[in-house]
């Protein structure tokens, strides 16, 4: 710092970093995690593009109208939306240092996530049972890839959620755990944003065709 001040005249603007500043532990985690989410967003963008190109190529097989049950998708969507809200409540409880309430909201979030996954897997099983497997047509390949990738993200989110609940139980709401919970919160809300695209472009638009 002394070197820098020695070479710069007072009042002159500085256009470069004058000295290496200190990075407190975890100070850049949120930005880094956000950039990860953005890269994840690109993966989904490509999968959406693939679905956009192949989504109408049925190869004389079943079309969205024959396969999708919109009321089931509506229930699924509301589960994911509710889980976003309950995770938000968990974050509020964390802010107020109420560990019990936070763990409670995390359990509720996890249950909603599980319900979402359960319904999605039931839907997949039903489709595969009817012969609408990923191999059947380009539409079904792209459908299973896009929706399956989202489902896989939710699965890993749930594993992460349970891991963090155990962490908080063992070590309490230490700074590192708060940071991890903030990251998972971003991840979870991000999955909800992706799901908006899925239910709009895959399910609703599919039914319109």
């Amino acid at each position, binding site marked *: 710092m002394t070197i820098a001040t020695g070479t710069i005249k007072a009042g002159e603007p500085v256009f470069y970093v004058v000295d290496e500043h200190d990075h407190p532990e975890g100070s850049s985690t949120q930005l880094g995690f*956000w950039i990860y989410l953005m890269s994840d967003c*690109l993966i989904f*963008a490509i999968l959406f593009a693939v679905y956009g190109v192949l989504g109408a190529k049925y190869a004389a097989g079943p079309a969205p109208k024959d396969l999708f049950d919109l009321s089931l998708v509506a229930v699924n969507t509301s589960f994911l939306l509710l889980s976003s809200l309950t995770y938000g409540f968990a974050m509020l409880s964390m802010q107020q240092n109420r560990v019990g309430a936070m763990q409670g909201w995390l359990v509720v979030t996890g249950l909603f996530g599980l319900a979402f996954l359960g319904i999605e897997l039931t839907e997949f099983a039903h489709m595969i049972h009817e012969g609408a497997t990923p191999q059947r047509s380009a539409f079904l390949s792209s459908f299973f890839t896009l929706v399956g990738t989202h489902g896989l993200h939710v699965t890993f989110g749930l594993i992460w959620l349970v891991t963090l609940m155990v962490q908080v139980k063992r070590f309490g709401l230490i700074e590192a755990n708060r940071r991890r919970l903030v990251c998972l919160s971003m991840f979870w809300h991000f999955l909800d*944003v992706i799901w908006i695209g899925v239910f709009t472009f895959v399910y*609703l638009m599919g039914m319109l065709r």
Partner: protein
Amino acid sequence: MSSDVHAHADAHQSADDHAGTRQGQLIGFGLSVVLTAIPFLLVMSGSLDKQVTALIIMAFAAVQVVVHMVFFLHMNTKAEGGWTMMALIFTIIMVVIALSGSLWVMHHLTTNMMPVHEMGQTP
């Protein structure tokens, strides 16, 4: 030294900011419910023209994404010195190029394809 203190205060503030307020969460949730329910009702009832319905549900999806970004992900131009917003804008540009480019190119490829095997292939 003052910059260190400032950076630390910033990091701390952004961690706290991430929870938002209960009111904000509920407003975001309420808006999301409305923005989700209307497209579902429109498609399930089929009361409107298909083209119009498609445009409406896409508009609702775009608005809902913004609602989630603001109320749940707490996006703003000041967090992390504006870098999260920068990353977001960059990503949106990439997504638009990837999506519109793929759809455009592949659409033209399909329509301009020589109908060689038309006998065997029904769409």
